[in-house]
């Protein structure tokens, strides 16, 4: 058994909050640069150039990449041999509180979805935990803006719809979203499981780095090509670059079901993973 103190979790979360909100992950930065090289439309090239400049300013000056510093998703893998002293959920939310305050980030969470009073410190986060073998804790902090999250969709397709049904649903989602989710996008697709698991898998998919291993590399390639043919382009103002990448996560499903969920990440799909 290994003991991990709640205070260490708070510190790690606060550090990850600041890093995630100010430093664009290297794979996303690389994909933006490649898109800039390949983009043919002048307006789109200008926009991609500003996004690259934005990432430089944010990193250099410790500024948030985007003013929507998100409602924070915190995804934690807890080794089954770990014993946590203190309250895990409170320790994580305290890390959010400290990180958002120290980073001068916007508080974007309301306490009640109908009464809508800002909690003032960006808590609570949305916390997922999974128990895994081992004695480590792996914490991923993923600040997710609402511009992109609001355009997410899920559907329970008929199994007969198959791969084409999934392609059609993903493309329809990207078309409906247009410029709202701040393309170029990272498109996350969750396939299988049931309703809630498909949604979680879609989120997991955009939390993965671009080019990570996939159950369906060919389908990802096909989707990326089709999405970039839509011409939606950076900011929805036209161009060759509508998505930087597509990631798929899947799970076994019921004989009668083909659940599919699409979660869109903006061009500043931000994440930071720390291990304790």
């Amino acid at each position: 058994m290994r003991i991990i103190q709640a205070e260490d979790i708070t510190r790690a979360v606060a550090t990850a909050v600041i890093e995630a909100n100010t430093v664009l992950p290297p794979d996303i930065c690389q994909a933006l640069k490649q898109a800039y090289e390949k983009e043919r439309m002048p307006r789109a090239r200008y926009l991609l150039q500003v996004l690259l400049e934005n990432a430089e300013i944010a990193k250099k000056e410790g500024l948030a990449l985007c003013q929507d510093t998100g409602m924070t998703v915190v995804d934690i893998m807890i080794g089954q041999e770990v014993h946590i002293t203190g309250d895990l959920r409170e320790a994580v939310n305290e890390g959010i509180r400290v990180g958002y305050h120290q980073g001068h980030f916007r508080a974007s969470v309301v306490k009640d979805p109908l009464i809508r009073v800002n909690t003032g410190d960006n808590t609570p986060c949305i916390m997922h935990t999974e128990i895994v073998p081992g004695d480590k804790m792996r914490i991923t902090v993923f600040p997710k803006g609402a511009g992109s999250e609001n355009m997410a969709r899920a559907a329970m397709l008929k199994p007969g719809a198959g791969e084409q049904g999934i392609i059609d649903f993903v493309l329809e989602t990207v078309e409906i979203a247009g410029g709202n989710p701040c393309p170029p996008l990272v498109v996350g697709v969750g396939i299988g499981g049931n309703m809630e698991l498909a949604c979680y898998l879609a989120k997991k998919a955009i939390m993965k780095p671009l080019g990570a291993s996939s159950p369906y590399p060919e389908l990802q390639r096909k989707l990326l090509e089709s999405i970039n043919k839509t011409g939606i382009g950076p900011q929805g103002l036209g161009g060759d670059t509508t998505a930087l990448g597509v990631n798929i996560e899947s799970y076994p499903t019921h004989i009668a079901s083909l659940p599919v969920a699409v979660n869109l990440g903006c061009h500043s799909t931000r994440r930071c993973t720390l291990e304790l």
Partner: protein
Amino acid sequence: MEFKVLKTPLTTEVVRSLRAGDFVALYGVVYTARDAAHRRMVQAIASGEPLPFDPAGQVIYYTGPCPGFNHHPVGSCGPTTSGRMDGYTVELLKLGIKGMIGKGERSAEVRAAMQECQAVYLATIGGAGAYLSRKVLRAEIVAYPDLGPEAVMKLEVADFPCIVATDVHGGNLYRDQDKGAI
């Protein structure tokens, strides 16, 4: 890219000179407002109360900036999705608002009202909040401080980059794109 200089407040004449696709560099005062502030302003109109600022010729920027630090008036300060404000916009246009800055397309109803009231919709760069924050010279809360980041702020901007997305002559970059004619 060549940018036209655009000074606020806007006149009908200036609005009419803009065409979808033009790049503009904005100078002067803009007022921030997003969902919660729009709800309050429309409530104020309904109950005959004054708006937090005189809307004639003014420009509303759909944003809720991060707090400023290190002597900067605001932190990251990019646009939010404009479509969420569509339901409140027509009433504000009728009171003389001449420009809106945000990201993403507007409803057919808002586009029609823009033609009727002669107002322009400018897209700025979503997710470029750090870059855009450096174009803000001054910031001051003028209404609804209890809304925190959703309070109405008076921002003074210089060289603030926008693209004319919807003009008063029927030009609309988003709609053109729907037609496949980019």
